């Protein structure tokens, strides 16, 4: 009999360690070859990847189709942006604050939205995100619809200068790695099991004695917090934040990344982000109408690869969750 009775697809830790080592090495290599433009590009992709992974937490694992996730990314970004503008540049305050504020909004939005089901849940999360968008849009003090420029990046002390592309790249990599590891532990824990169960059948889960609503709330808040973290990184990367970051179309982009990379896989959001943003950058080199071509590729993916990228490379899943 199998000594490890878990039915989850076994994550090969050595593979992840290898990837991490490669990423670290790649960064150093790029810096030393004077290709810091690509470093910055990679950082941007990883930040979107983190945002998409946080969405995957509720979408892929939780089975909750939230169409307002970009709001949490934007809230995180604005929290850091506003703090820096108001003279609080410390990253040690800014980043936790971004996660906390996003978590608070997620708690509020989740408390109401999670009482609904199906398409109504989709709509109400979308509505709340739009509300946040319009609210931020109207606050002229912090740029309104023109967005907010920040003069400097977050300051973490210890001589760490985030203006240095490599330093920033490593920060992003660290945040991404920690977040993914956290999500991995989360989904393999008791809590994670209940989340996956309610995705399969929430009525049955409730009928076993679990307060499903509470689990969904906690998951929603955690996803919001990690989304906020990606926002904090994003405003640093661009030295700018704009309310459009929270528009429902941005939530759509995140969702596209998740679907592309593989719904319900740990790093699906990351792969999807890497693919989508690479496609965009590549096509943008040749034509201003790159969206046209990217659109066709997305369409092809949906019609021919129902499980997304991850589905193409993995065997049929053996059980609960993936990766």
């Amino acid at each position, binding site marked *: *009999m*199998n000594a*490890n*009775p*878990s*039915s*989850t697809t076994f994550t090969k830790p050595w593979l992840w360690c290898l990837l991490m080592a490669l990423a670290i090495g790649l960064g150093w290599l790029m810096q030393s070859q004077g290709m810091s433009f690509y470093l910055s590009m990679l950082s941007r992709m990883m930040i979107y990847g983190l945002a998409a992974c946080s969405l995957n937490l509720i979408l892929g694992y939780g089975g909750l189709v939230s169409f307002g996730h970009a709001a949490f990314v934007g809230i995180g970004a604005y929290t850091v942006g506003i703090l820096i503008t108001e003279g609080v540049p410390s990253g040690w305050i800014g980043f936790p604050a971004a996660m906390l504020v996003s978590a608070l909004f997620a708690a509020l939005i989740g408390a109401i939205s999670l009482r609904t089901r199906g398409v109504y849940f989709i709509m109400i999360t979308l509505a709340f995100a739009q509300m946040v968008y319009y609210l931020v849009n109207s606050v002229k003090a912090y740029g309104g619809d023109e967005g907010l420029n920040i003069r400097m990046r977050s300051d973490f002390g210890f001589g760490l200068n985030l203006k240095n592309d490599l330093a920033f790249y490593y920060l992003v990599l660290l945040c991404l790695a920690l977040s993914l590891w956290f999500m991995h*532990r*989360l989904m*393999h*824990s*008791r*809590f*994670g*099991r*209940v989340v*996956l*169960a309610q995705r*399969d*059948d929430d*009525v*049955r*889960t*409730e*009928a*076993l*004695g*679990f*307060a*499903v609503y509470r*689990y969904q709330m*906690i998951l929603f808040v955690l996803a919001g917090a990690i989304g906020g973290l990606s926002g904090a990184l994003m405003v640093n990367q661009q030295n700018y934040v704009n309310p459009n970051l929270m528009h429902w179309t941005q939530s759509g982009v995140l969702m596209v990344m998740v679907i592309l990379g593989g719904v319900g896989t740990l790093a699906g959001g990351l792969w999807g982000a890497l693919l989508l943003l690479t496609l965009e950058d590549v096509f943008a080199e040749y034509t201003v109408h790159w969206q046209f071509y990217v659109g066709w590729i997305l369409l092809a993916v949906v019609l021919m690869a129902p499980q997304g990228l991850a589905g193409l490379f993995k065997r049929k*899943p*053996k*059980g*609960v969750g993936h990766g």
Partner: protein
Amino acid sequence: MADAVLQVKSLVKHFGALCATDHVSLDVRAGEIHALIGPNGAGKTSLVAQLSGLLASDAGQVLFLNEDITAMSAHQRVRRGLVRSFQITRLFKSFTVRDNVALAVQARTGNAYSFWKPVAAERALHDEAQAILHDIGLAERADELAQNLSHGEQRVLEVGLAMATAPKLLLLDEPMAGTGPEESQRIVDLIAGLKNRVAILLVEHDMEAVFRLADRISVLVNGAVIACGAPHDIRHDPMVIAAYLGEEQSA
């Protein structure tokens, strides 16, 4: 006289003009198998939904172990030991058979919200799950995905899942729905084995099984209980025969 584990007092439920539950009163004693029978449309489904906490009643009271649970939600009732199985199979399709049962065990043991320790490492949990699978005869299928089980095996697992929560009262909603004779027998044996250990309210259409298993039978027709008693008495009750058994015997 054995104490009543479940007491239903004058439960009422309307759906618009339709009275689905018409002042239903019944009780289930510790260790007994109390069957609930009735023709289609009698209101068995709504009654089960109300008792399990998925549907709110309009009036009446439900007492479980002398505690008023009328206003309690589904998961709160389960925590107190009132557990149901479903007529239409509700399993965790993407989980293995063992993981299905392990989840039920997890619900009543240990930290509910533990988010760091991997579940796979919990030997005790999986050993207990395996033991339960052994009891219900699905031990060899432990590593199979629940969705790959045959219909009959799924019905067995359906009951097994409810049993794994260590209930004080099992509310079995047509456990033999859609099963062939072999699987039906398996489930009958399973339920028979629970007699005297767990109180059971069994909702079923399979008359043979009902008359074999039940200590008492209540008959539900048009939302109301028209008779309640020992199987022998029910079988020969003219009202019951007229309203229900007559159709069944000719069917």
